[in-house]
């Protein structure tokens, strides 16, 4: 039986084979896909910024940078980013310590509440806060004014301060999550040995516990900083009416003003480059900070950490925490829900003003735009999810298993859009796919949004699939080979089934953000390609606030159902 096999395997020696091998085909396809999805759009931004049609030109960049309007936006972006980050850190660390190290009751409930902000799109939260606290019009403001007989509204979210507050309550869970997991994984003997050395509890917190969580705190903070710098939804919803601009909102504004003119588009491109530079600086700081303090604090026997007794402070702290969480997590949801049932925005929230009309309109399909927005978003979510699923898993396999020369380049290309603000990615797509290259014109169609989504979310699947692939030890495939399976069979029988759960959750990792996306779609949508985010946004801008609220409730419901579904699936498989 062996003699027969010999001839066939001659060619396998030294990799000489007829035609292109499976591995090589995947490598080539990866390069092509990434070039179209990532490289061309990014290149087009740089091209427009520094090319005036005939020659290289730096003037435009300078002009745009030093325009007072843009400088103001830059300043606002920086202020919002820095202040938000600092406040989020303080609140995040406080709650992380409370849940990770103290004996406060109801930890399960609080943990659940902390996870909610991750599910709700930021612009929906901003919209809800606007309903509560926008000057005299806000419901809560109104209530407080009549209660305390105030002449002025006590809070005004339509301000720099307002934007910061909303971003803080929305983003502090980033810090909380990082720190609480660090505290939970920290070897308790690190703290116990300090007690033995003679240090009191407070001394241990300040000299051992806190310093050891600094890497976690700083990585959480930088996550907040980068997200805040590139956020579009919150500043646009709260700042637009008061002419408060940040870099992302300014870029959109410039794009709208340009109305297709070359100079106008170049201005937007220039501002995009500036935003990218700002984010790049933040990323650079992150890299430096993370490299400095990478401690290994998670070894040793797993023991439950010693909980510190809060004693007298226990219940006051509990009440404070629950009140805080109710205000920042539950109140916005309740507000949107209430508004979605009200006959007209501004009417008091009473039973007389109750109506189901807004929902009826959505479900009856009487508003064609709303129906098509739902369809569009579902279509985009599913197709982007599926395409990313296959493309991302293939990329992961190529980068981490085939490991061709230059796999680092492939990886960098794939994760680049992850650190680019959505606004910038959208501009890139417009510049690239409006007929300039090979006559491909996707502008105003749903396809351009799809391309942008794929570029933005590809790295999510890449990450989850490659993490799973790296878990698949080479000996698992080799065992299959020695059991008589060919290379392709070992892939099909062993590797793919093993990473299937990760691929599935990768799909949802793309699907969910697609459902709530606003930043990219707001620049890319056309008359027939509105998404849910865009629809809610424009309903609100046109004053149809209760309808916007009803659509928001629907969106949030879809997201929560999907989120639970993915949790259920991954939990079930993770045995």
């Amino acid at each position, binding site marked *: 039986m062996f003699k027969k096999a010999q001839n066939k395997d001659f060619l396998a020696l030294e990799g000489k084979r007829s035609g292109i091998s499976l591995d090589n085909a995947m490598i080539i396809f990866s390069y092509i896909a990434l070039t179209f999805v990532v490289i061309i759009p990014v290149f087009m931004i740089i091209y427009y910024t520094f090319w005036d049609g005939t020659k290289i030109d730096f003037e435009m960049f300078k002009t745009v940078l030093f325009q007072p309007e843009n400088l103001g936006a830059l300043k606002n972006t920086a202020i919002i980013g820095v202040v938000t980050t600092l406040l989020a850190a303080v609140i995040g660390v406080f709650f992380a310590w409370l849940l990770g190290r103290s004996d406060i009751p109801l930890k399960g409930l609080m943990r659940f509440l902390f996870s909610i902000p991750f599910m709700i799109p930021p612009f929906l939260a901003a919209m809800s806060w606007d309903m509560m606290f926008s000057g005299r019009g806000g419901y809560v403001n109104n209530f407080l004014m009549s209660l305390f007989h105030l002449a002025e509204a006590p809070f005004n979210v339509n301000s720099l301060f307002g934007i910061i507050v909303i971003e803080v309550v929305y983003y502090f869970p980033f810090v909380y999550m990082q720190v609480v997991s660090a505290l939970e994984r920290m*070897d308790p*003997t*690190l703290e*116990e*040995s*300090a*007690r*033995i*050395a*003679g*240090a*009191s509890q407070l*001394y241990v917190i300040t*000299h*051992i516990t806190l*310093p*050891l969580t*600094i890497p976690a705190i700083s990585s959480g903070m930088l996550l907040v900083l980068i997200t805040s710098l590139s956020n579009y939804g919150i500043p646009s919803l709260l700042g637009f009416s008061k002419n408060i601009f940040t870099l992302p909102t300014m870029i959109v504004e410039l794009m709208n003003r340009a109305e297709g003119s070359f100079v106008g588009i170049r201005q937007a491109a220039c501002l995009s480059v500036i935003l990218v530079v700002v984010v790049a600086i933040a990323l650079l700081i992150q890299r430096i900070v993370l490299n400095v*303090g990478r*401690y*290994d*604090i998670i*070894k*040793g*026997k797993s023991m439950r950490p*010693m909980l510190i007794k809060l004693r007298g402070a226990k219940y006051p702290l509990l009440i404070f925490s629950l009140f805080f969480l109710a205000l920042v997590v539950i109140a916005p949801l309740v507000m949107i829900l209430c508004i979605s049932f009200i006959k007209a925005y501004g009417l008091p929230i009473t039973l007389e003003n109750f109506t189901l009309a807004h929902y009826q309109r959505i479900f009856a399909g009487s508003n064609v735009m709303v129906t098509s927005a739902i369809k569009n978003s579902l279509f985009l979510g599913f197709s982007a999810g599926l395409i990313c699923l296959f493309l991302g898993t293939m990329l992961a396999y190529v980068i981490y298993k085939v490991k061709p020369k230059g796999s680092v380049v492939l990886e960098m290309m794939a994760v680049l859009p992850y650190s680019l603000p959505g606004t910038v990615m959208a501009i890139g797509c417009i510049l690239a796919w409006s007929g300039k290259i090979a006559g491909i014109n996707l502008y105003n169609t749903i396809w351009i949004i799809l391309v942008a989504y794929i570029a933005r979310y590809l790295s999510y699947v890449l990450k989850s699939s490659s993490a799973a692939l790296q878990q698949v030890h080479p000996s698992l495939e080799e065992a299959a080979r020695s059991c008589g399976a060919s290379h392709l069979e070992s892939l099909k029988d062993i590797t793919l089934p093993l990473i299937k759960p990760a691929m599935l959750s990768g799909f949802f990792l793309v699907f969910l953000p697609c459902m709530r996306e606003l930043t990219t779609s707001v620049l890319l949508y056309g008359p027939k390609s509105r998404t849910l985010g865009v629809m809610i946004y424009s309903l609100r801008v046109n004053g149809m606030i209760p309808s916007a609220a009803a659509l928001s409730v629907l969106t949030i419901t879809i997201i929560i159902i999907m989120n639970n579904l993915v949790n259920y699936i991954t939990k079930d498989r993770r045995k």
Partner: protein
Amino acid sequence: MTDQIVLNHVTKSFTTKELGTVVAVNDFNLTVKKGECFAFLGPSGCGKTTTLRMIAGFEDLTEGQIYLGDKLVSDSKKNIYIPPEKRELGMVFQAFAVWPHMNIFDNVAFPLKVKKVPKAEIKERVTKALHYTSLDGLEKTFPSDLSGGQQQRIALARAIVVNPDVMLLDEPLSNLDPHLRETMRFEIKRLQKEFGFTIIFVTHDQAEAMAISDRMLVMDMGNVQQIGTPSELYNKPINKFVHSFLGQSNFTKVVIKDGKAYAKGHMDQTIAVDGNVPEENGEMILATRPNTIDINRESGYKTRIIKRTFKTDFVEYLVAIGDDTVLIQTPHRNLFKSGEECYIRVHNPAWYPPEDEEAEKERERRNVV
């Protein structure tokens, strides 16, 4: 010698949802003399670490008192619990627990800084502690740049820098490779000679416990089984558990008849015993060690070599006694071949009553839990 650590009727029980009430440590009485090296040995979950943590002050007592020197540090009745930081102990943990954000000097200086010792004195004492642990010149290095063995030395230096009377060691060598483990054992003994502290050493490794300790105890399921010197415990184990937990054991089913031992079911040949044989007739278990069975070509219980295995230090023979087999270890000299006829004699064996099946079942149940 004075008493350094005294535990009086110490009991600790936990109540959990799944298991109900579990007695982790049951009526533990112990007096450790000043300057002694005392080992707690037992399988995981036997309560040895819990006892150590009660001495350190990390756990409250359900019942009993603990004295360190003359000082009452824990008392369940009077609800006295001196916090760990006030007990003036040195402690070294399995996972080293050196602080990764401080360099070696700051790690070792920490206990002194907390006590507000003057700077110049800190420097002097830290330098000395680093010298004794062979860490000279590494003051500015961070723990992550050091090997496991060196990290454990930092932990030792940090513990000795305050000159404690008592040193608690919680499986300090389990995370090191076997070779390093042996070296560190000697280091610890050397430091003890130098500084004269009392050691309590918790381990699940019986060889380590015997090698390091002056006296030791064996615990099982929360109960102390036996306290004594390593050779007392190894050579005169009080029960079958201690016998089997320390070193290798041969348990052979025998029948005693008129002061002579026969393999169960083989009454044709007496087993050659140098030492006591129980007087009462009936079934017994003959417990021997591989090193206390003599194998020769002249006299004794006649049998055959079933299997010979070379170890790097000695040869092991598997030999039949009746239906059971026993393991015999001898140096690499006067070799017997597999299948060869031979004679064996057992020296100073221990005798235990036939297996108590109920007790075995209880152990299995607890192991499953």
